Each structure stands twice: as structure tokens, then as C-alpha cells.
């Protein structure tokens, strides 16, 4: 008892220690991780510091030299022009902009990342010849290398500034402008003036990738939208559609062929991979790969041949999406449509496949009996009924060897659990029996005390 009192008083002592309180004296407790502030006050202090830092940064930039100064100004002007052009996009974003409120937590998470930004300190022995950017476009890593070269400093600075600006203004969503502003900027840049469009495109890709990778954690599936909830709902929904076969969708898939099976798995893999990539164009590349596999599937499944039309393509894609049930597909789709280079999404081949994916997703979201051309009863039976266990379980097993082995494992697990339960019951019985015996024994002893006298009691007490 005394011990406990002691520790308790110690705790009170600590709690009453004024040093533990928030530095601002707001009454809440502080935390060393928040530099002695409470969470609310720390947030305020932190934001204040951020703003100050950003201001000083731009001041430094302004001082950095006449020509560069001019360049940045020009860039800013062009950015404004870019903003104008993006009128439509802004409108689309407006709704988001209003509702957007980034959680501070995310901001904190991001802050250490900032210090690791490449500083762009030149390896000065490199001079950037006009041929150089062409090489640089071969890979992203190469791109980052060129970014560090002195001639590319301006571009690099711009990227960094942009990333910082976004991070400092969590409520501001202007990413789309980035690409536009960047492209305008690059085109005006003296180095790129004589370059073919292709090179600019590739460099732009690199810039986009760089920025989006840096911002990924903040802008992907932001907490203020209901992306996450939709993801979960979709995933659940797709799982409940596991009974759907290619025939339901009129998809030209021949599930008996091993080659087709393999391709289906590949395509599913591609879809799942979307979530592991960060830059929008990498995600898009996954979508394109998946679609190429779907072409192959259709070619193999329709011996008569002919060109693959969208009439075959879309059902097949829907089937693959249902089977793959990729994690956070909705978030990924949203992310790509929000932040990918809009030109690419509207015109290019990747854009076409992406649109198809959007369609597949919205089809699944609205999927009902009519869309599968079956009666409501049949649909309900498949959705919630037991028919799927009997007649459809077999093809499902055949289609997916992994789920088959999983089922086996689950079966043995269940057996073991039942056994465990039995054992537990036996143990419980034994325990109650033991208790009863003890009670009986004690009763017997107590009875012995009254009837047989002190002798017996004394002997038992001494042994106890």
C-alpha cells in the first residue's frame, strides 16, 4: 500500500511539474517531440515558421542574381497565363478546393522529406550541350542527374519552389497548373528553344514525375475527400461479385485455355501494381500494360479473329477488374485524373485505356441485374444466396489455384480451432470439478471440527 501511494504521489509530482505543461501556458500538457508545446500550439508555431521560411526563401531567390531573377519573373508571368488556360480545370477543382483541409499530421510526415531534396549543387565539370537533354530523357535517374547540372539549376529551383509552395499551403490545390507552367517555362528556356517537341515532352515528363513523387503523400487519397470510403465500399462490392463469369458480361474470354489463364493473371497483376507506383504516368503505364494483355486474351479467345473492337474490349476489362479487385482503385483513378498531364489523358493511347478503366469502374459501381441481363431474383440469389456455394464454387476453384490452397489452409485451421475449443471445455470441466472437490474437502474438514473435536483440526492446520 505504501509503495503504491509513493508511486502515485510521484506521478502527481510529475504531472504538476510546470515544465511539462505547454510552453505557451495554455494549460495542456506539452511533449518533447513537439518541442515542449502541446499539439495545438505546436501546430501554430510550426505553420508560422513555415511561412517565415518560405518568405525568406523567395527573398533569397530574388537576390540570387539579375538574370535568374528575370527568368523567374517571366516564369511567374507564364504561370499566370497557365492559370488562365486552366480555367476549366480550376472549376472542376473548385469543389475540392473548398472542402480541402489537409491534416497537420500529413504535413509533419512530409517535413523530413523536404530536407532530403537534392540541393542541385553542380558537378561543374559538366557543361550542358544541346544534345544533353536528349540523353537525359532516357531514364528518370538520368533526368535527376541532369537536374543537378548547373544549366538545369533554374528548372530544378523551380521544381523545388513549387513543391515547397504546395507543402506550405495545404489548402491550395494547383498541381495541374504545374505541368502547364512547367511546359511554358521550359519552352521559353533558352536551352530548350531549339529542341524538338519530343524532347520537351520527355523533360516535362521528368519534371512531372519528380514533383508528383515528392508530393505523393500529401496529394494521394487526401483525408478531406471520401476517396477512402469509396475505396472500401468498392472493394467490398467487387468481392460480392465474385460469381460473375465472362458469360455474364458477354466477354470473349475462353477460360479453359492455360495461356489465357496466364494472361488473365498477368493483367490482374498489372492492375494491382497501379497502387505501388507513385508518379501518375507510371500508374498509367500499368493500365496500358494491362490493356495490352487484354488484347492478347481476346485474340487467343476468339479463333475467328478480326480486329479487337471496344465491344469486346470493355467487357473483358470489366471482368479483369472484378477479378483483380485492386486495392484503392478509386483513389488511384482519382489521383491520375487530378494530377496527370491533361493532354495525355485527353488525346493519347494511355488516355483511352484510362477512360476505359474509368468506365469499368463506374459500371461496377452501378452494376445491377439489368446490366447483366438477368432477372432481379437471379441476381439477388447470386449476390446473397447460397447457390454460389454449390454450382459455382467449382469453376472458381479451378480458376484460382491460390484460393484453393487458401481454402485448404482455412479448413485445417478450423479443425484445429474446434479441437482447441473442445480442449478448453474439458479444461473448464476439470477446473470446476477441482473446485467442487476442494469445497467438499473444506466442508468435510469443517464438519470434522464440530464432530470429531480439535485434534483433527490441529493436525490439518499445522500442515497447512
Amino acid at each position: 500500500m505504501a509503495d503504491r501511494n509513493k508511486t502515485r504521489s510521484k506521478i502527481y509530482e510529475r504531472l504538476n511539474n510546470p515544465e511539462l505543461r505547454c510552453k505557451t501556458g495554455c494549460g495542456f500538457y506539452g511533449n518533447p517531440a513537439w518541442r515542449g508545446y502541446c499539439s495545438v500550439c505546436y501546430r501554430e508555431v510550426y505553420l508560422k515558421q513555415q511561412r517565415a521560411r518560405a518568405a525568406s526563401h523567395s527573398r533569397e531567390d530574388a537576390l540570387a542574381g539579375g538574370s535568374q531573377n528575370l527568368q523567374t519573373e517571366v516564369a511567374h508571368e507564364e504561370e499566370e497565363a497557365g492559370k488562365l488556360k486552366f480555367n476549366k480545370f480550376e472549376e472542376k477543382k473548385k469543389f475540392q478546393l473548398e472542402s480541402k483541409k489537409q491534416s497537420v499530421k500529413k504535413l509533419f510526415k512530409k517535413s523530413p522529406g523536404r530536407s532530403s531534396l537534392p540541393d542541385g549543387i553542380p558537378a561543374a565539370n559538366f557543361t550542358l550541350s544541346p544534345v544533353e537533354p536528349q540523353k537525359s530523357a532516357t531514364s528518370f535517374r538520368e533526368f535527376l542527374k541532369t537536374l543537378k547540372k548547373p544549366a538545369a539549376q533554374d528548372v530544378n529551383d523551380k521544381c523545388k519552389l513549387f513543391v515547397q509552395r504546395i507543402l506550405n499551403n495545404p489548402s491550395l490545390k494547383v498541381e495541374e497548373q504545374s505541368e502547364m507552367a512547367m511546359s511554358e517555362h521550359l519552352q521559353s528556356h533558352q536551352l530548350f528553344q531549339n529542341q524538338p517537341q519530343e524532347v520537351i515532352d520527355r523533360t516535362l515528363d521528368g519534371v512531372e514525375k519528380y514533383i508528383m513523387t515528392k508530393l505523393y503523400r500529401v496529394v494521394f487519397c487526401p483525408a478531406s475527400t471520401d476517396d477512402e470510403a469509396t475505396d472500401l465500399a468498392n472493394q467490398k462490392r467487387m468481392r460480392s461479385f465474385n460469381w460473375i463469369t465472362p458469360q455474364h458480361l458477354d466477354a470473349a474470354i475462353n477460360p479453359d485455355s492455360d495461356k489465357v489463364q496466364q494472361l488473365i493473371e498477368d493483367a490482374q497483376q498489372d492492375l494491382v501494381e497501379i497502387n505501388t507506383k507513385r508518379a501518375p504516368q507510371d500508374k498509367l503505364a500499368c493500365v496500358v500494360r494491362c490493356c495490352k494483355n487484354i488484347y492478347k486474351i481476346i485474340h487467343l479467345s476468339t479463333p475467328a479473329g478480326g480486329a479487337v473492337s471496344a465491344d469486346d474490349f470493355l467487357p473483358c476489362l470489366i471482368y479483369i477488374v472484378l477479378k483483380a479487385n485492386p486495392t484503392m482503385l478509386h483513389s488511384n483513378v482519382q489521383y491520375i485524373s487530378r494530377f496527370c498531364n491533361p493532354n495525355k489523358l485527353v488525346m493519347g493511347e494511355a488516355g483511352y485505356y484510362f477512360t476505359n478503366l474509368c468506365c469499368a469502374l463506374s459500371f461496377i459501381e452501378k452494376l445491377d441485374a439489368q446490366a447483366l441481363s438477368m432477372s432481379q431474383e437471379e441476381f439477388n440469389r447470386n449476390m446473397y444466396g447460397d447457390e454460389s456455394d454449390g454450382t459455382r464454387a467449382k469453376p472458381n476453384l479451378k480458376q484460382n489455384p491460390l484460393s484453393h490452397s487458401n481454402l485448404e489452409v482455412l479448413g485445417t485451421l478450423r479443425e484445429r480451432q474446434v479441437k482447441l475449443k473442445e480442449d478448453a471445455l474439458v479444461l473448464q470441466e476439470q477446473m470446476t470439478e477441482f473446485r467442487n472437490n476442494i469445497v467438499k474437502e473444506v466442508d468435510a474438514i469443517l464438519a470434522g471440527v464440530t464432530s470429531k473435536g480439535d485434534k483433527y483440526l490441529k493436525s490439518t492446520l499445522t500442515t497447512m
Partner: protein
Amino acid sequence: MQEKTYLKVVLLGKVNSGKTCLVTRYITRSFSEETPSTIGAAFCRKDIYIQGRNLSLAIWDTAGAERYQAMSAMYYRSARAAILCYDITDNISFDKVKFWVDQLKAAEPDCRIYLCGTKLDLIEEAVQPREVQTKTVVNYCRDIGGDVFETSSKRGYNVDKVFEKIAEDFMKSSSIVTTGSKGDVRLEHKSTEKKSCC
């Protein structure tokens, strides 16, 4: 090097109205009834040189089945031209075209509309009777301000003309609308601070 201009063309039409064959014919210059082709025709790109400019046609095929109708808006978003295919021997397919015309007019007023009656060879060879009369289509087109073509993908008749017309019309209109609409955008920097406890 000259700058390329991109033009998005979307194909709409009922299932089996000959959308895919039309594109395949245009791209590969062949009509495949049985021989498997190696291209995925759902998306095609065709570069053409017209009036001193490089034009790149991005042709988007769409799924014509009724169940996917609700999603077709996603496909024709920001398309500059739409080819609406109907089967000359199938009246229902032309009714479907009317449906899509209404949709397009409402959603994409800038999109030019080209009606395309397919399978002309079936009539010339008297395999099937004509159901959609040229006159009705021409009259309808005058009302909606579109163009009409009757084609045979099997023989290649009139196929190229459809796409040439699209390119020409685009060049005409693009001299007026080159930069796209400009508007004002004001970004408001609002910092709505919210207080919350732990």
C-alpha cells in the same frame, strides 16, 4: 520539326454497326472478315499531312452495347469529331444514332457530327434490303448540321473520304479556335484555421 496537332475522333454506334471495320479499313487498308488482324483496333492513331500541317487523328472506339450506354459520355469528352455509325440494313441502328446525336449536342456542342451508313456492299450485292433511306438521313443531317456518308468497309468505298472530311473541317475551324477558351481564374488563398485538441 513541325508541331503536331492532335484531333480526337470518337466512334459511336450500335453493336455490329461496323464501327471497328470502318477504322480497320482506314488504318490498314484491308477488310478482314476472317483473317485475324494483329492490331488492337479499340484505339488507333493516324498521322496525316494536310494543308501544310501535321495532324494526328486519335480514333476512339466505344462499346455500343446498351448496358455501357451510360458511360459513353466519358469517351466523347473533349472530342472534336464524332463518327456515328449505323447499319444501312438496320433501322434500329439509325434510331440509336439519333439518340447519340441528342446526347452529343447537349454534352459537347463543339463536337462535329458525321453520320456514316455502313455495309453499302450488302445492298449493292442485294444480300439484304435497305432499311434506312438516304433521303431521310440527308434531311436529318441538314437539321442537325452534320455530314453524311454511305460507306462500304469491305470495298473501301468512301471510307477515306469520311476521315479526310473530318481533317478538312478541323483545319477550317482550328484557324479560328487555336488556343482554346481563355478565361479568368482567381486563386483565393484562404487559410481557414481550425482549432482542435489532441
